């Protein structure tokens, strides 16, 4: 049954998909994005969050390097609240190939990336945790970026131009008539209802799942999912991004975000993009390499380990993994395979998501007779929350949480939350001290149409995502959710199950690193929830 229609349907709620949704919407094209789970659940939120300067690609792939530095400049401007505008360092330590440096410096210069060599003393003064085996250090314009938030801001920006989105809506069939895509069949993963959506063009932006989507139309598109494993530490090890100055390999990059640091990544070709498991060997490899840069790495507490799948595009006959291109391809299936009304975008990296969308839409738009120019680099993703609103909020918020909440909520929802805090003092309870999340914010986000479960609310608010790993807020969020959202959100009505599921989700990232200070935290979690609260229930 046809229940909806859109000129363009975009499949996939990662950075690529949301970038295209925003680009199309700003060109005045009617577009609808569907995502099988919650928005941004794949690699766009499961990577190190590096805003590349391009220096990493300066030797092997100067085109990618140039794109990175241009996009780096643009994203710093249009996505201020998602970017930590810090700089980066490339460091060479004893044992690294000294001959790599000159071509790298030259490559950076040719790509338009400013580098500055600093003395060993200066480098150690700026980043005191660096290894004493440091040989040379260069400054580069790297930054840190919150992929989850930036993706969401793209969605919200698109919505202001009429772009639509449906989460928990999974593509299950592509309906072709007379050599052209006419509609798709989707399943609502919340209600389990199946229905059709008519469209003129179907965009496959499913990242590592793109091969599976292409198969539904009988097409062959070789995407090689490549798993990247990352480790999050409970502190800012450095104030800048720190890269190893050598041929890119595993465990080379440290990116500080807020109060944590992410070390990445590995690159393992896997058959199933859903596979985000990690092993001791992967962790050990990252730690071993990372120790070269920060020698006391094993003394820092690890928060969790996680993995995401990169959507590497592999032209026929080439191999995947680290040697596959980080570039992207636009496949027009009308030209390639004789199927009208379907295009695929594949590969790429977060830093260049906007440019990818621009180039892709430059091909797509003319097919619809639209000649509008791309405007996504001209306008901020979201308008900034006003200083007056922030000032008002400081009366009710823990003051250092004001900026966090303002960037999470944005201009429309932030003033509403402040109003609730003002009128109802009980909503001022801070449910999550790590991320400064108040009850009022949780209540507001629960009303969003994309909030189907407590887990969705947690992702949007970052409730329970902070450094305590949910030890303190698991009980709070379970209690609040069950009180306020019973019958409204899936997963409510049984606070014990909710509490257990929440801690279990965190546990997955903890088990592969159960050593060092992580053991201490685990003994405390179990002491609280098993011994003190006996969450497994009483008279078994």
């Amino acid at each position, binding site marked *: 049954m046809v229940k909806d229609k859109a000129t363009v349907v975009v499949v996939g709620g990662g950075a690529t998909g949301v970038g295209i949704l925003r680009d199309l919407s700003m060109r005045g094209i009617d577009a609808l994005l569907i995502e099988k789970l919650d928005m941004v659940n794949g690699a766009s939120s499961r990577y190190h969050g590096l805003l590349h300067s391009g220096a990493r690609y300066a030797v092997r792939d100067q085109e990618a390097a140039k794109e990175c530095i241009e996009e780096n400049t643009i994203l710093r401007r249009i996505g201020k609240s998602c970017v930590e505008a810090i700089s980066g360092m490339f460091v060479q330590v004893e044992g690294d190939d000294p001959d790599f440096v000159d071509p790298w410096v030259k490559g950076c210069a040719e790509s338009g990336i400013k580098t500055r060599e600093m003395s060993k003393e200066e480098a150690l003064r700026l980043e005191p945790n660096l290894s004493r085996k440091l040989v040379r250090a260069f400054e580069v314009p790297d930054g840190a970026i919150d992929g989850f938030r930036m993706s969401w801001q793209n969605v919200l920006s698109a919505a202001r131009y009429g772009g639509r989105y449906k989460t928990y809506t999974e593509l299950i069939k592509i309906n072709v008539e007379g050599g052209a895509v006419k509609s798709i069949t989707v399943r609502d993963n919340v209600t389990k209802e199946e229905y059709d959506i008519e469209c003129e063009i179907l965009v496959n932006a499913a990242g590592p799942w793109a091969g599976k989507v292409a198969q539904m139309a009988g097409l062959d598109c070789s995407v090689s999912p490549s798993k990247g494993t990352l480790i999050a530490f409970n502190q800012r090890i450095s104030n800048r991004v720190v890269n190893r100055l050598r041929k890119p390999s595993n465990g080379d990059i440290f990116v500080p975000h807020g109060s944590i640091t992410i070390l990445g990544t590995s690159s393992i070709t896997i058959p199933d993009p859903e596979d985000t498991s990690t*092993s*001791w060997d992967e962790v*050990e490899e990252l730690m071993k390499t990372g120790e070269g840069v920060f020698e006391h790495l*094993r*003394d820092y507490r690890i928060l969790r380990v996680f993995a995401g799948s990169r959507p590497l595009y592999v032209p026929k006959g080439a191999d995947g993994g680290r040697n596959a291109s980080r570039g992207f391809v636009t496949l027009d299936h009308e030209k390639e395979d004789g199927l009208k009304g379907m295009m695929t975008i594949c590969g790429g990296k977060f830093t260049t998501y906007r440019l990818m969308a621009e180039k892709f839409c430059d091909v797509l738009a003319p097919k619809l007779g639209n000649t509008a120019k791309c405007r996504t680099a001209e306008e901020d993703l979201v308008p900034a929350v006003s200083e007056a609103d922030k000032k008002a909020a400081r009366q009710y918020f823990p003051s250092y949480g004001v900026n966090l909440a303002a960037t999470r909520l944005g201009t429309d929802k932030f003033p509403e939350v402040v109003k609730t805090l003002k009128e109802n003092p*009980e909503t001022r*309870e*801070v449910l999550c001290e790590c991320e400064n999340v108040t009850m009022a914010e949780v209540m507001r986000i629960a009303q969003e149409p994309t909030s189907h479960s407590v887990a969705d609310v947690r992702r949007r608010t970052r409730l329970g995502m902070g450094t305590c790993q949910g030890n*303190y807020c698991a*009980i*709070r969020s*379970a*209690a*609040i959710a*069950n*009180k306020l959202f019973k019958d409204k959100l899936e997963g409510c009505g049984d*606070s*014990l199950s909710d*509490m*257990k599921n929440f*801690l*279990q989700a965190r*546990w*997955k990232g903890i*088990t592969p690193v*159960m*050593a*060092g200070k992580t*053991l*201490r935290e*685990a*003994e*405390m*979690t*179990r*002491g*609280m*929830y*098993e*011994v*003190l*609260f*006996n*969450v*497994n*229930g*009483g*008279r*078994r």
Partner: protein
Amino acid sequence: MSKSDVVVIGNGFAGLMSALVSADQGKKVTLLSYGAGTFPLNSGVIDVLGYDDSGKAVANPAQAVGAVADEHPYKKIGTQALEESVKFFQDVVAAEGFPYVGSLNEQQWLITGVGTLKPSCLIPESMQGSKCFEASEIVLVGVKGLKDYYVDMVAENLAKELGNDKKYTVVTVDPHYKGARDLTTKDVASWMDTDAGYSDFVSQVKESAGAGKVIVVPQILGLKGNVVWKKIVAELGCPVVETTAMPPSVNGLRLRDVLLSALKKKGITVIENSKAEEAVIEGSKAVAVKAGGEVRLQTYNADKFIVATGGFYSGGITMRDFGEAKEVIFGLPIECDCVEERWVNKQLFSDKKQTFAKTGVRVDATLRGVNESGNVVLQNVYVAGRNLSGYDFCFEHSGNGVALASAYKAAKA
């Protein structure tokens, strides 16, 4: 530097009990303390054995303790020492005016801070959840502004445990707190220790009390022993039951205060804020430990040492890297089955013990560390509490029971 008969290292439940039992033997005891052990975390109740290996509730702890696996500390301690230790503990707390109820032959039932039931063995009078079993109405009291106690959730879960044929009523007390921050149970307990706070609280719950009812409150009935509990039970005319609580747990702190008071009466020297860093070993004996703050280490000589420094949480056992588990002061031999397939259960809450949780010092029946051939490594160093290997106290609910019995046996040796 004077010499003690016994140096006890550790300020948690196992450490304090080791010191008390040693002093009771007429020994001159020095206790090195650093931190507060797990008192603020464990609600000060003595779990002996709540669940067996398959996760089934244990009805008779004494019987179940007799049937544990060979690796389990109880096997090494033996039931006789356990029985004696329980009596010793009950005498100590009773003499301090803070009696604990319960015996090794049955479980006591607690109501937890989320409303589930929890088996335990020795508990303070204020926490007897079994009072609810026969009641027709349970009045659940919440406190406005109190963090981490969600009375509606307690009601939801307690109704699941006890059945819907009872009436569950929720009352929220307003402590008229004017400050800006969230309240903890400790804050509210301090308020209850004041006459004004107590009267205010009673006036707000009095109407809901009465025959056939039980009042369930968070752990807020004062910081000093059972004083407030006795008063309020008499005044309301029906049972009043405290739940377990999120740290800092008030009852854990009450028990700690009571034990420290007993320590003082026994003339035990307590060195505060003094972290034991290293041991001085001569042949197969320890002669001293060096402990102190940031500046310099003091040497503490003794004939006998009891290690009660805790597990991973307290830092008595560390494992910087996979397979490198250590007992940090004496370097005692460690039992550690650090194999990737077994080390951690994929499920946090499951029907299996966690292998990593069983990591600890390998001991014989004398509670001294032994090498793989079973030979004692240091003749005069004994181990008590979570330093021991072979049990998962979270899964079994056996933490303070093992601590008590092993402390008793180590001190008696």
